[in-house]
């Protein structure tokens, strides 16, 4: 038993910088590999629907718009997404995944409809012989940002 056992530790911190982060004004950096928001690289997607099948939250919705053109539509419901990145693991396209996840974590919105992301695209065809066309290095922007 020691009275005021915590005293030295408390006084030591009295004039130190606080350990907490002034969050909405200052932001913490996320480590590499952080699982943020999923997105699609539509030019690579072969429409195998593996991500849709494996998504535990049923947040991925794929529909075939045009049979002849092989035109597909994918909606990612970010309001349902649990950020597990199973879709990235399930995606068979390699080395650059068609389905990938970025590091954005501030998704809050006043309207759940704004959280949907939608892509309309033609199915990519895997070419076995020739190497893949160099995928764009920059983060592809969602083709239709608005809903």
């Amino acid at each position, binding site marked *: *038993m*020691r*009275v005021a*056992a*915590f005293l030295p*530790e*408390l006084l030591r911190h009295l004039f130190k910088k606080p*350990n907490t982060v002034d969050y909405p004004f200052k932001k913490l950096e*996320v*480590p590499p*590999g*952080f*699982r943020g928001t999923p997105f699609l690289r539509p030019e690579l997607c072969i429409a195998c629907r593996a991500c849709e*099948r*494996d*998504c*535990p*939250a049923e947040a991925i919705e794929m529909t075939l718009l045009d049979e002849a053109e092989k035109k597909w539509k994918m909606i990612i419901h970010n309001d349902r997404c*649990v*950020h*597990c*990145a*199973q879709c990235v*693991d*399930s995606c068979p396209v390699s080395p650059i995944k068609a389905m990938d996840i970025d590091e954005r974590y501030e998704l809050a919105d006043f309207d759940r409809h704004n959280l949907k992301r939608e892509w309309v695209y033609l199915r990519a065809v895997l070419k076995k012989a020739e190497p893949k066309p160099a995928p764009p290095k920059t983060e592809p922007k969602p083709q239709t940002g608005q809903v």
Partner: protein
Amino acid sequence: MRFNIPIGPQHPALKEPISLRMTVEGEVIRDADLRLGYNHRGLEKLAEQKTWVQNIYLTERICGICSHSHTTCYVQGVEKLMEIVPPKRGLYIRTLVAELERIHSHLLWLGVAGHEAGFDSFFMYTWRDREVVMDLLEMISGNRVHYAINTLGGVRRDLDEGQIKKILDGLVVLKERSVYYARIGTTEPSFVARLAGVGYLSKEKAMALCAVGPTTRASGVARDVRKDDPYAAYEDTSFEVATADTCDVLGRTVVRIKELLSSYQISEFLVRNLPAGDIAVRAPKRAKPNEVLSRYEAPRGENTHYIKSNGSDKPERLKVRAPTLANYAATIEMLKNGFIADIPLIFAAIDPCVCCAERTVELVNGRTGEEKTVRFAELRALAAERHKQLSTKRNAVWPL
């Protein structure tokens, strides 16, 4: 004078909804009753409609604090059903995450115990240093709470040299701080006065009521699944099962601190002896009809999953027994003849993990004492009715 006080479903001491009805006489509790189901999400039924892969993430969401324990328990059961053996490196990483999770859970518990006893400085400092292990877990798995590192047949992410160095550095800091908190927690007089002798659970009672985890170990029962029934990489590690024989909340604190120290030792061993090789093997889509019982020592005690497969890509039955449920009977026993002031500490000492989903509320009519259960829609209707009767009408319309 005897009267009833309700602790929960909504109460500042409870982080999750559960209802404890206390019959008190002055400051002394004479009887306690328990009511669950405020957060029943029908998870076992839902699991029967999801595929094996989807169920990993479903079981992960049984609990936030011990998310890794439920997935590991589920995944190692399914691996047996599918007759695949994960590679050694995968098992080591899985065990490492499990131990880091135990560290974060026990540090969290230390802080919560401080907070329940009104020792907020202790709470702030332990949680500040808990960030170290949270950052390690985030670095390894990509998320702070739901690590999702397990997959059928191994783990999903590998460790590189830089990460291993960071983990070792972090463990040094954590170890030093834990030793310090152990000293504070067992020497600060006002804190010890709240812990010692509170929530007595004798060894016989602990065994009869089938308590698990640190609750029984603090009553002198050396029972630890990691030792009795080694899974994952625990066969390679060596550690002591932490016990105490004071049978009170102080004993449970001591057990948890001892487990923290042994967890640092195990994690360090795992990181230093990480075998080379693959981290996962491919898992089939279906499992043959069979059944398996999987056990796991979660930070709160033994976690049991019974999984039955029927040859399809979905389980026939997934039975989950989380450790907290097993401790409820013992909690009622500990609460009896205690003080009202000790309720939060005793209840927190089993490290309850109830999880949240609001479904119903109980309304007690103040005049008649009559109780009824009201659904959320009715409650909103009642609120709207009351709102209309108010003399000053508000103009603002609530957006929902």
